[in-house]
């Protein structure tokens, strides 16, 4: 019923994230919920600041992963579940936040400014803005440290999990480069053609603009721009 995810682009995160899909759903769900619970133990202020939003659903959609997450706010720690392109969710989310995994984790840790990511369209938000804003503001104050949460969640296995996270955020950068290199190699010819076309379209647009301006002159609409 739900088709709110578009396919992720080819990226390092996607390639390395593919094993996530191989995890049995209950196992993944268990790890996710454990992480969220640990998070709430470390940052009790966050669920407190979000008390007014109990019952609402938020889709967290890392654009470069093959899975997304539905966060359901409650009076206590939020519940979290994974959804994929082929996995169905029971309820439509009240809001969704879509962006690259690296941007979303940086946002979670307060290392980047959410508004700035949004203005530059690195983040795409749909639905209930108040919910998104409340979550952002609550998280921003919490000074989240993902590595610490992993330590709480995975106990003895934490070093392994941390390494995996580092791979996901840092290692992926290298992988990203490789993949995108590969991608460029494959698509280079197409790319060139597209660039040629786009420059021609640009020229035609400029000509049309010029013609319109001449038609209007001495018309008063110099400052305005058409939206069509």
């Amino acid at each position, binding site marked *: 019923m739900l088709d709110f995810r578009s396919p992720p682009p080819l990226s390092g995160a996607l390639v390395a994230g593919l094993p996530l899909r191989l995890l049995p759903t209950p196992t993944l769900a268990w790890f996710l919920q454990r992480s969220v619970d640990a998070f709430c133990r470390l940052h009790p202020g966050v669920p407190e*600041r*979000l008390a*007014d*939003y109990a019952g609402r659903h938020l889709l967290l959609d890392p654009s470069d992963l093959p899975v997304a997450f539905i966060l359901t706010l409650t009076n206590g720690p939020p519940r979290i579940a994974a959804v994929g392109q082929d996995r169905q969710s029971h309820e439509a989310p009240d809001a969704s936040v879509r962006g690259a995994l690296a941007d979303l984790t940086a946002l979670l840790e*307060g*290392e*980047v*400014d*959410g*508004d*700035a990511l*949004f*203005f*530059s*369209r690195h983040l*795409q*938000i*749909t*639905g*209930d*803005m*108040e*919910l*998104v*804003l*409340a*979550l*952002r*503001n*609550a998280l*921003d*104050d*919490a*000074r989240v440290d993902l590595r610490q949460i992993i330590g709480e969640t995975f106990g003895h296995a934490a070093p392994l999990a941390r390494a995996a996270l580092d791979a996901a955020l840092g290692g992926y950068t290298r992988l990203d480069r490789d993949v995108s290199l590969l991608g460029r190699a494959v698509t280079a010819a197409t790319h060139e053609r597209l660039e040629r076309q786009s420059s021609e379209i640009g020229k035609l647009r400029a000509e049309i603009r010029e013609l319109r301006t001449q038609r209007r002159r001495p018309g008063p*609409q110099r*400052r*305005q*721009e*058409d*939206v069509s």
Partner: protein
Amino acid sequence: MNLPGLELVCPAGTPAALEAAVDAGADTVYLGFRDCTNARNFPGLNFSRKELEAAVAYAHPRGSKVYLAINSFPQAGNEGPWRQAVDDAAGLGVDAIIVSDIGVLDYAAQSHPDLRRHLSVQASAAHPLALAYYHRNFGITRAVLPRVLTVPQIKEIAAEAPVETEVFVYGGMCPMAEGRCALSSYATGRSPNTAGVCSPASHVRYVPEGGRVQVRLGDFTINRFESGEPSGYPTLCKGRFKARGHASYLFEDPVSLDARPLIPELAAAGVKALKIEGRQRGRAYIAQVVSALREAVEEAAAGRAPEPTSLAALSEGGRSTGGAYRKDWR
């Protein structure tokens, strides 16, 4: 020139942001309580009484001051929360309160004459006579000037006003006379004056339309973006509308104010304090912007023209403007 006296007044929406601002060189941090008494009553934002106490305890030993904004307008029959905020500000040792309502100012002047009172930009006092009114009647010692004035007008006000002046140098632009705008409540039923919010997030919807995104505020479409097109806050006055058959950003483009190059001129005009907008922004933004502004103030104090480092990535629409300070804004 009186440059070393320039005070940098920085925003904080959370305790973490306050610490970031102090650490980055804020002379003063301004903030609000987590309720309707201030004009940034946003979800998940602002300070409890306990958090304000901790904020003062963090700022004062590090040489920074704390101002409390009590700058929305009490609703008839419910002035209690605003008076309580004034009382608590005095009790918790903030350095000044920033107020816009005549009734709240009157209360503060009578009940806590020793608590410094600044006039909020929400009072929209744009002429020396208006400042004289608030000074004479309620003993304000400083006024935050509206963002619609030109530098020559600021100069004139600073020269004639019986109080210190503070002006915005960085952050969101408000093209209307602040505190006198009902555009938000016309579309959503809630405004800065009635609810401490403008174009509240609860009434904003981003609706995907194929490759485009439609921005709805209440029942009205206030913009439509191509995917990938830089955007700004979903604020009514920064929406795209049609007039005379043409769509445009009629009121204001999605840009942020960046008046760093004008700091020497503002200082020469007699301005006492420079203000950064953005209590709703994250601590990463606060740290970066406060450092950059601190640097600009130091440069100006050393007699050099500030050479702004790029903060464009943090701005609405990825662009900035000199705003009303720029001659052609009007």
